[in-house]
């Protein structure tokens, strides 16, 4: 197997007794957009700073394109970072900011430098703003200057620390796609640190979910969402209804579980690791629950009462009291109407059903 483009090999970082990053191993391919997702203090920013060279790992090694990065100072790494605060130089114009890194490129002539800056300004559509200072442009424009500045030296690896956090919602959606298209055009490998799961899901080819300094799961957005490996990942990405369950039996048809909160037996897809008698967690995404007035044919179905509902327009969120739990269910409002748009109303008795394949069984 060929060497991965970026290999993070059993890297740990301690600050005194605090373990910021613990034994992280990741392989990242060239041209990938890789998301590092986690809450605050999970170690994602420390990992990013070690890649940039601002922190040295306490243990483990980082290889970029086959080269060991140990002891290489930030100014010698072919790695550039887009800071969360953008860190634009306030005393320089947009153009000077973008040109800043290029002055260290000894091989470039003056015209080549000017061409590169013009190219970058064009890439982020800021040519008209070249002469402005950072405080004279909008937040979204600043974000693009920061991106252009980091890309100007054509780094092998671009680190983006919460790239969209400072933008408002509308701009964020637009910028996400812009970031992706710029990444596609430049072919630079992106590592995006974020605490926003939606941002990570839309931007990334693959995501590493981190918690307390450790990588909990690595996978594509679909894998992470549909097949979470642990309770933490299931709960961190999207919302989930989870229940304690006991494995009753395993067969080719699937797993039979006793779920007291759902008032009885439930079938789920077979999980090789499950052993009869074992206590597991059953997790179901709210949008995978179906709500009907009448008892559906076959499958898993439990009767309950609608306690609460929130109407969002395109869909509604229901809170339904089941025998031993309150669950959340999402239903699309497919019909149009005054009252009829909703599947059920307050205090209605309804049936909550789900396919065996929709149930996630978490062993750990």
């Amino acid at each position, binding site marked *: 197997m060929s060497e991965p483009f970026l290999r993070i090999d059993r890297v740990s970082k301690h600050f005194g007794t605090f373990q910021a990053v613990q034994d992280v191993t990741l392989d990242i391919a060239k041209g990938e957009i890789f998301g590092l997702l986690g809450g605050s203090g999970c170690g994602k920013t420390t990992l990013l700073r070690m890649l*940039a*060279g*601002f922190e040295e790992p306490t243990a483990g090694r980082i290889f970029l394109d086959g080269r060991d990065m140990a002891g290489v*100072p*930030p*100014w*010698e790494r072919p*790695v*550039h*970072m887009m*800071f969360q*605060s953008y*860190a*634009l*130089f*306030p*005393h320089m114009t947009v153009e000077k900011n973008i040109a*800043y*890194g290029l*002055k*260290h490129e000894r091989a470039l002539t003056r015209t080549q430098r000017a061409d590169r800056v013009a190219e970058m300004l064009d890439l982020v559509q800021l040519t008209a703003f070249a002469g402005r*200072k950072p*405080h*004279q442009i909008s937040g979204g424009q600043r974000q693009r200057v920061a991106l252009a*500045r*980091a890309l100007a*030296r054509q780094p092998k690896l671009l680190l983006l620390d919460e790239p969209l956090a400072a933008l408002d919602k509308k701009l964020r959606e637009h910028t996400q796609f812009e970031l992706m298209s710029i990444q596609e055009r430049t072919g630079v490998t992106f590592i995006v640190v974020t605490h926003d799961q939606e941002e990570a899901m839309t931007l990334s080819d693959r995501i590493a979910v981190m918690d307390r300094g450790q990588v909990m799961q690595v996978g594509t957005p679909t894998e992470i969402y549909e097949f979470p490996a642990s309770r933490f990942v299931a709960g961190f990405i999207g919302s989930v209804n989870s229940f304690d369950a006991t494995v009753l039996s395993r067969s080719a048809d699937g797993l039979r579980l006793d779920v007291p909160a759902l008032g009885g037996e439930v079938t789920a897809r077979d999980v090789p690791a499950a052993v009869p008698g074992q206590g597991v967690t059953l997790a179901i995404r709210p949008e995978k629950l179906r709500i009907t007035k009448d008892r559906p044919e076959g499958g898993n179905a439990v009767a309950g009462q609608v306690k609460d509902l929130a109407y969002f327009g395109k869909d509604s969120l229901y809170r339904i009291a089941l025998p031993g739990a309150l669950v959340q269910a999402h239903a699309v409002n497919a019909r149009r109407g005054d009252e009829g748009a909703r599947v059920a109303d307050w205090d209605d008795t309804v049936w909550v059903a789900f396919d065996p394949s929709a149930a996630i069984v978490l062993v750990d």
Partner: protein
Amino acid sequence: MDKHPLRRWFDLKGWRALLIGVPYLWLILFFLLPFLIVVVMSVATNTPTAPPFSIGGEHPWVNLGPFSRVFTDSLYLRAFMTSVLNAALTAMLCLLIGYPMALALTRVSRGWRTILLMLVILPFWTSFLLRVYAWMGLMGKNSWFNGLLTDSWNFLVPLDWAVKSVPLMNTNFAVVLVMVYTYLPFMILPLYASLERLDPTLDEAAMDLGSRPHQVFWDVTLPQSIPGIVAGGMLVFIPAAGELVIPTLVGNASQPMIGKIIQDEFGQARDWPMASAVAVALLVLMVIPTMLYSHYQARAEGSK
């Protein structure tokens, strides 16, 4: 129930007016008015009366004699030159010594910062005169300090250059030395204030883009601290140029600074118009760069 109109006026804007008015009144009474008196005096005629000047009467209303002497008499021109050079040298040395100290203050831990800042301000707790006298003691011929300098000098240079003691007292060098010592905190504090505001991630950004730490200083730290440098420079330069006590106590009497001239004209010579003219000229000399600076500063702010 109607309130008294005066009461209503007070509730609406009286307090505001009072709060703004008092400092202005203070400035008008204790700065502008005395300054106007000095300006009037500077165009009066010196007479053997008490006070020793008069305006109008048998004399011309405006006597520009003192001013023409300020710009022609070599005594005043040389004194102005000495003052400006000494003050500029003092400001420059304070900057060179103070900048690393201010920068260090921003890089140490919070606890150390408090202690070090305290040390910077500590000299103000003892009398200024006492500190100048301490320097006189140190620089005098018979002090251990001078002895140490003399021995080191004699050890380092050939024999025929040997001296009995290093001439420190009553030199222009002593004036600059003591002024640097005295005004250093006025340079450190504004520098520290402007350096402390800088965002450390900008340094990281510059390093990330390929700059070594010393390049980061020239590209990022220094340009952003220019307002602090200018503020500190003016806080040192302006009082140093008008300094009277230090040159009188440790300076060379044959190379007077402008403060000494003003004192002599007012005192021994009893030529108040002349003294006033020198004072007004000094003020104009100091005010012009300040105004130019605030003009450019305002323009820079305006473009923000």
